[in-house]
Each structure stands twice: as structure tokens, then as C-alpha cells.
């Protein structure tokens, strides 16, 4: 068996182990991206209502709505007329309060949905202060407690997911690193013999490093195929849970797996080789 063939014989186990690790990383990446979208979705449903003063002309309200629409924080605005507000309240109460009161006491309002980046307690407080200064606005209203709770929960979830991601990333790298180190370790006598007969470090490293790149490519491709299969299955069973039509996200995940696969194997092989090229005779049997 030639030197190159000997290296290749251990490649299969590396490819299998690496594929599984990269597959798990891919799943995690997909969860992270979806979690971000879910968090944005929740945040973008956070909004506040701008109550317009009594007697403001429709044209002024329309202008105010346009002004708010043009602001960077605004995702969507909805003008609620007095009549719409009364209808909604009547539906909620189940009785016609206008007949009872003799007039409609409700104010015109504009409901504003915010972009995810502005949907946090600080920004909302700032916006409330800013908008309250407008002469047409009677009051700016939002559910402060709910916003704070959502914001806190989203933050906690992000920290948890990020920590989990970092932990899994470290575990994955360690697993890949150990698999490759074991593979190089098993050839330490071969490496030593080559060194003793005058082979250059470059000659010794060459086949290991080029093989590591191929291993990285094969592992990434296997992991990507496994991910595609799993995503397809999930898409069939839970179409609302996953968004695999999002080609950009999928592209980012697959490209990351591809690059990580090659980079991890190459780096691990490089450092393992460096160790065994420098190893002393007394350490080789340990």
C-alpha cells in the first residue's frame, strides 16, 4: 500500500465523522436563522397607537400618517377612524355604547407597526416622547409591560441560542480535531521514518494536507445532502415551520458548511502534523 493509499484508507472514517458533525452544525445554523426570523416576526408585531386630538382635519391626519410612513422606524401604519374604532369597541363590548352615551367619545388614531430593530423599550420610549410633541397628537399609547416582556424573552432566547451555538461549535471543532489527530497519530511512525531518511517537511505534509482538503470537500457535500434530505422531509410535514424557499439563507448555510468543512480539516491536519513532525523519539511511544 503506497503512502497516499495508506492515508486514504483512514479517510473514510474521517469523512463519516466530519459529515455528521457538519450536519449538526448545519441544523443549528438553520435554527439560528429561523430563530432570528421568528424573533423579527414577533418584534414586528409590536406597535403603538397615536391618538389624534379631537377636531383635527382628515387631510392633516393623512399628512401625519405619510410623515410617519416616511420615518425609518415605521414598517406599516393603519389609520383608524372614529367610526372604525367605535365598530371595533362595539364588537368587543357586544352592545351599542353610542346609543347609550349619545355620542362617539373615541378619537381618531394611527396604529404603527415598527421595524424589528426599533421594537425595544428604549426606542419606543424615545418615539413616544418625540411624537407626543406633535400638536396634532393627543397621546401616544403602547403596552409598555408587554413590550418589555417580549423584548426580555427575545433577548434571553437569543443569548441561549448563541451560547448553545458556540458550545456546539467548540464541541464540533474538538470532535473533528480529535478524529484527525488520531488519524495522523496512527501514522506517526511513518512520519518519523520519513524524517529520519531525509524527507523534507513539505514532502511529508503534502499528501496529508491535500487529502485533508478532499476530506473536507467530501464531508461537506455529504452533510449538505443530508441537510437537504432532512429539510425536504420537514418541509413536507411542517410547511409553516421551515422556510426552505429562502434561497439566500440556504446558500449561506451550505456555503458556511463547505468552507468550515475544508478549513476545519485543513487546520486540524496542519497542527497535528506540526506536532508529529517535531516529536522526539522518547515521546513517540507515549
Amino acid at each position, binding site marked *: *500500500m*503506497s*503512502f497516499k493509499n*495508506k492515508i486514504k484508507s483512514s479517510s473514510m472514517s474521517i469523512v463519516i465523522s466530519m459529515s455528521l458533525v457538519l450536519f449538526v452544525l448545519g441544523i443549528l445554523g438553520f435554527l439560528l436563522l429561523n430563530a432570528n426570523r421568528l424573533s423579527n416576526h414577533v418584534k414586528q408585531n409590536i406597535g403603538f397607537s397615536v391618538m389624534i386630538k379631537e377636531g383635527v382635519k382628515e387631510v392633516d391626519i393623512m399628512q401625519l400618517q405619510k410623515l410617519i410612513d416616511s420615518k425609518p422606524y415605521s414598517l406599516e401604519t393603519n389609520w383608524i377612524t372614529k367610526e372604525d374604532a367605535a365598530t371595533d369597541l362595539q364588537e368587543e363590548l357586544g352592545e351599542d355604547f353610542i346609543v347609550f352615551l349619545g355620542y362617539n367619545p373615541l378619537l381618531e388614531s394611527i396604529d404603527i407597526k415598527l421595524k424589528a430593530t426599533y421594537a425595544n423599550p428604549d426606542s419606543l420610549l424615545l418615539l413616544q416622547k418625540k411624537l407626543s410633541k406633535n400638536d396634532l397628537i393627543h397621546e401616544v399609547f403602547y403596552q409598555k409591560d408587554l413590550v418589555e416582556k417580549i423584548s426580555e424573552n427575545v433577548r434571553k432566547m437569543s443569548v441561549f441560542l448563541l451560547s448553545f451555538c458556540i458550545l456546539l461549535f467548540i464541541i464540533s471543532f474538538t470532535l473533528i480535531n480529535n478524529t484527525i489527530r488520531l488519524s495522523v497519530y496512527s501514522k506517526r511512525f*511513518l512520519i*518519523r*521514518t*520519513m*524524517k*529520519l*531518511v*531525509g*524527507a*523534507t*517537511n513539505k*514532502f*511529508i505534509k503534502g499528501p496529508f494536507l491535500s487529502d485533508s482538503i478532499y476530506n473536507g470537500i467530501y464531508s461537506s457535500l455529504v452533510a449538505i445532502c443530508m441537510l437537504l434530505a432532512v429539510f425536504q422531509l420537514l418541509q413536507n410535514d411542517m410547511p409553516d415551520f421551515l422556510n426552505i424557499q429562502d434561497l439566500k439563507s440556504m446558500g449561506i448555510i451550505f456555503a458556511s458548511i463547505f468552507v468550515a468543512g475544508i478549513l476545519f480539516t485543513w487546520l486540524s491536519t496542519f497542527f497535528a502534523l506540526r506536532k508529529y*513532525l517535531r516529536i522526539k*523519539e*522518547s515521546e513517540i511511544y507515549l
Partner: protein
Amino acid sequence: MKTIIEFKAVDILQKTNIIFQNLNFKISSGEFIYIIGKTGSGKSSLLKSLYAELPIKKGSISVLDYDVEKLNDDNISNLRRKLGIVFQDFQLLTDRNLYDNLNFILKATGWKDKDKIDGRIKEVLDNVHLENCEEKMLYELSGGEQQRATIARALLNHPEIILADEPTGNLDPEKSEKIIALLKEINDKGTTIIVATHDYSIIKKFPSHTFVCENRSLVETSSENI
């Protein structure tokens, strides 16, 4: 004759143990030298220091105009290509046949032309009288044949010096004599040979310059005094 190995005030250590202290020693081209001594007296360490496997603590070693203690990785490779090393534990690759063992070394040391590689392998196997063993796996070779295989490997790159560490260590007297006769034959063609051994019978049979490792030093002795 030209000096090809020179030790100047060299201290050699194995971990923290001093093996040699203030060693001064010269070997000229074409010599056949025995290094003898008890087990653990430093014979192997001395050879290892020659091919930069064991760093020295003090002094300087010159081998074929290389300052061994100053060599970087690339120069260590260059030096080792000019030396033929017969290792005590053979260092043959047990998972391949004899031809592949030799082919591997030639490729590792920069040979590319297949015809030249085949020619050189045939030549060295003829030299060590293993011409019909090319295809044999190592486990099919006897101890003496394996020892000759390591000598064949040492000869591959036309070395100026052969360092043989206990080349008869695992062999019966008859085979030991054959190995030393073979090394003498190679020496007659101009290659400097340094043999580390504790097999004194071969020295009596094939007398030559002999140095004893004792008291952290190397002392020349005559074959008759052994």
C-alpha cells in the same frame, strides 16, 4: 584524508543525564570505525547526534561540512540524505514489500524518474545480495535479510557515510559476520562506515579503528585489547 566528522568540546545529554562531556573526536573519509561500550553507554546517542536527532548541549559537531547544531529542518533533511542510517530497530515499513520500502525512500528524497528508481533499487539489492526478494513482504524475510534490507535502504542515496546502530544486534554469529563483511565491502568502495556495537566477536574477526564509550568520553583502543 579529509576530515568528514568532527566533534569539538561536545556535551551530549539524554534528558538530564550527561552521556558525553567535552567530547573531541575526528573521523576521516573512508574510515571504518567501531564504537563500542556497555548498553546505555551512549553509542546510539552519539550516532543520533550525528544526524541531528539528538540535540547537543554544548560544543559543535561538523558532519560533511554541515554544522549540525545550527541546522534548520530543511538542512537536516539535506544532511540525512547524504548519510545512510541503519537503525537499531530497522525502521522498515512493515505494511509493504521490500521494493515498496525502497521506492518510498527514493520518492521521499526527491527521486522522480521511474526507470532510475527501478535501476537504483535493483543495484542496491544486488549489493546486499537480496536480488530475488523485491516482492517479498517484510515478514517473509529472515532477521539477517531484514538487516541487509536496512543496509540496502541506507545505500540508496549514495551516502558518503553509513551509520550503523547495532547492525548485528538480532543476528546469530554467522549472519553477523556476513553483515559486517558486507559493510566492509561497501567501505572498500570508499564509503565511511561507523558501526556502534557491543558484539566484540565481530571486531576480532574484522579488526579496525575502535573507540570505547566510557566515563562520558570516547577512548581509542586497539582490537586486541577488547
